[in-house]
């Protein structure tokens, strides 16, 4: 491609570019095409071929699509695991070969390639896992619906991270915001007997945690990562202390919140697969979709979003243009905390009907990973969170149907994927330029 402009390689095919240079093409040309993606794809392709294909199980994997409550029934899909594994892994190898071919012509792999590769790889993996199980049958509808449910706090958490990092503040305290939200939601919902007030209180609690982060990192210029790490400990200690002293002493009065009910939209909720995930959710679930869309629209389609991103990328320039950098940061971080707090309420108002210590169980860190995996974009973070929710759900399902893969390795998967992601498998992820750097007007 237009690498010719920056690094004239001896074997390059002249100055002419084989493809019309679009805007993105110009941007990409700054970095030379590396061998990283083709090599990794090829490696994964070989892994898929050997494990999912050649060593594939000799059973038929069955994937149920419809549930009984759907208004029309679709037959279950049956895939011969061995054949399916071979076919899919050959396609994977083909994709990898295409990436290698492109590299030899000094072209970067197009964006669809790694995405298609990932989807097919997951499919091959799923066929392999289910095919090798004692009872080779799972409900795809249940798997996907469960994944979305498990992803709800992750989506809220990563949206909080997106808002904070886009404005230049690293938010390691997502875990604390989720935990604070969960605790407050349980307490307030129980005391007022209103889950809605609990939801509101959770948002306030998340915002308060965020304000501490904002004050210490913006006003006192303390390193943002330090504040985040310490805030997680602080919230964990506070909620644990109050849980032991207040909640346990009087569970009925403080820790038996009324849950949020599923709101079912008639007819639409009967559509197989997408019905339950889009039209049969709790209020928190619907809020999740709204939040993703609103944050995306806000960040990329409004004046406010432009300012926010300017502050996160180049605060000095933003300041010169008359944007109040630190005020923008403060309110964005606060807003992010409120969103994460709502996500926290999921734990006590939807998933479990009471608060326990450390109920968020490290999901704030997975949300952080989802944010990076999703390349600091609300939509990307949403899908990354779904992927992690999927891995989480798959882990519990494969333990039930009994597969050869130890459940611990399934649980490890999101973290391994994140390591691959940050180490540059899925293209180089670049944080907002000023993220983590305090701004002092100069």
């Amino acid at each position: 491609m237009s690498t010719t402009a920056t690094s004239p390689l001896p074997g390059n095919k002249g100055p002419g570019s084989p493809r019309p240079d679009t805007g993105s093409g110009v941007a990409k040309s700054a970095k030379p095409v590396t061998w990283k993606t083709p090599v990794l794809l090829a490696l994964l392709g070989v892994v898929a071929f050997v494990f999912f294909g050649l060593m594939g199980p000799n059973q038929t994997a069955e994937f149920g699509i419809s549930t009984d409550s759907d208004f029309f029934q679709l037959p279950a899909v049956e895939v011969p695991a061995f054949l399916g594994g071979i076919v899919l892994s050959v396609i994977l190898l083909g994709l990898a070969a295409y990436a290698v071919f492109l590299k030899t012509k000094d072209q970067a792999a197009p964006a669809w390639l790694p995405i298609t590769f990932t989807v097919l790889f997951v499919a091959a993996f799923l066929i392999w896992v289910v095919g090798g199980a004692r009872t080779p049958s799972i409900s795809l509808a249940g798997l996907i619906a469960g994944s979305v449910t498990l992803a709800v706090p992750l989506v809220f958490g990563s949206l909080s991270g997106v808002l904070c990092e886009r404005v230049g503040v690293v938010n390691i305290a997502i875990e604390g915001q989720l935990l604070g939200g969960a605790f407050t939601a349980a307490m307030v919902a129980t005391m007022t007997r209103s889950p809605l007030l609990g939801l509101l209180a959770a948002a306030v609690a998340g915002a308060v945690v965020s304000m501490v982060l904002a004050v210490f990192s913006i006003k006192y210029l303390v390193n943002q990562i330090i504040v985040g790490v310490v805030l997680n400990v602080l919230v964990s200690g506070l909620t644990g202390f109050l849980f032991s002293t207040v909640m346990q002493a009087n569970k009925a009065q403080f820790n038996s919140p009324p849950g949020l009910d599923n709101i079912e939209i008639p007819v639409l909720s009967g559509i197989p697969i997408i019905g339950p995930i889009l039209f049969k959710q709790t209020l928190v679930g619907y809020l999740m979709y709204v939040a993703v869309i609103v944050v995306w629209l806000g960040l990329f389609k409004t004046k406010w979003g432009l300012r926010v991103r300017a502050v996160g990328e180049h605060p000095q320039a933003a300041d010169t243009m008359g944007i109040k950098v630190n005020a923008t940061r403060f309110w964005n971080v606060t807003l992010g905390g409120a969103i994460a707090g709502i996500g926290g309420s999921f734990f006590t108002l939807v998933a479990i009907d009471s608060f326990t210590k450390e109920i968020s169980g490290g999901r704030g860190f997975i949300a952080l990973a989802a944010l990076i995996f999703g390349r600091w974009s609300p939509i990307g973070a949403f899908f990354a969170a779904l992927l992690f929710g999927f891995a989480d759900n798959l882990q519990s399902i494969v333990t039930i149907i009994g597969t050869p893969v130890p459940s611990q390795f399934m649980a490890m998967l999101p973290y391994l994927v994140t390591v691959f992601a940050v180490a540059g498998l899925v293209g180089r992820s670049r944080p907002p330029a000023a993220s983590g750097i305090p701004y002092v007007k100069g």
Partner: protein
Amino acid sequence: MSEKDPRKHEADLHPDKPRGATPAAEETAAVVALDTAGGAMEPSAVPATAQSGKLPGGPDTLVRKIFTGNGMVSILAVFLALIIGGLLIASTDEQVGRTSAYLFARPADFLTAVWNAATGSYIALFQGSIFNPRGSSVGVQFAPFMETLTIATPLITAGLGVALAFRAGLFNIGAQGQIIMAGILAAWVGFALDLPLGLHLLLVLVAGIVGGALWGGLVGLLKARTGAHEVILTIMFNYIALYFLRYLLNTPAFQRPGDSNPISPILDPNAVYPQILGTQYRLHLGFVLAIAATVLVWWLLSRSTVGFEFRAVGANPKAAQTAGINVSRSTILVMAIAGALAGMSGVAQVAGTEKVLTDGVAATYGFDAITVALLGRSTPWGTFAAGLLFGAFRAGAVQMQIQTGTPIDIVLVVQSLIVLFIAAPPLVRAVFGLNPRRRKPAAAGTSQKAAATGGAA
């Protein structure tokens, strides 16, 4: 980080920072990690104070130094955190609740109840961690202190690992995973092999150190090669290590014969640390090694070339690179050494305190190590002292919960408040009215020059 005092060699590593900034700017500048070298390197993750361990602020009068210096701020921060913790304890105390009902009629009752609730818990904490006057003999009376030292051992070594990485500008959240990996290897060598006395223990120690060093070094390698952020990497590596440990504990190789519980066999008697002060205390050789490690890290940082390179990279990676220091090599090496130090904590756990491997081998030592290193301002002896303090908190909290019913979690609150306050000296000084003349409480926000290079570099 613009130091007014050119004697401090850190200043020489900041050729791109303005010299002779105003005194108001100094303090701000010192607490901000401004060291970002263009797009080439990640910005330093740790404030300059944490890296240098030096006083923020130029030469000043002795009195001001005492009252506004780091030492005083640290003490005041601990004090402030204890007060807030005490108020929290009091707020949930039954007696306080009862007396608050007639607060305005007899306020003295209320205040007495508050005082009793808070001090009662802290006295129990003290008795559980330092000295128990009810003991029958001097040995028993000081038993709590020995317990404090035992618990402090893994905190000190893991804290040193975190502190060392801080000094090189790396935020090592991965002590937890490094302890786990070290624990796995050390425990396996300890219970699976059968070797003579001395050699076996040595091998256990080496295995643990190698395990931690590899796990930490891998993060350094990934960061140096791909530029991935070490905070994310270490968090992920913690989880990977934990699930790997859980998997191993579900395999027969790591279980007791004929038992399917996730607990390893007890380590061979030849493979465990001897108890250095007799069998009545749990205190083991690991504590002596922790002291040795502290000396070693001190030497490494302040007397060795490698340590100078670490600090140079931490202060300004770009300048370090220009000066001919191999930044990649330093990154990998410092993470490996940090991992090795955390590995010593893993060994202290499996070969000293626990003598078996369970999935709680690291407890929360790896995360506590971060606060220990921050409290110790990333200096070796500061970390040592902070490790002792947090060890005392943990040891005493158990006794406190038994005696007064105050949950252990209060220790987490106090610990995190201490670190927060220490990280923000202007806040602590403002609370105690110690801010130097002509500066308003909002000292940090007012300085002008500090961020001349601080924006998006």
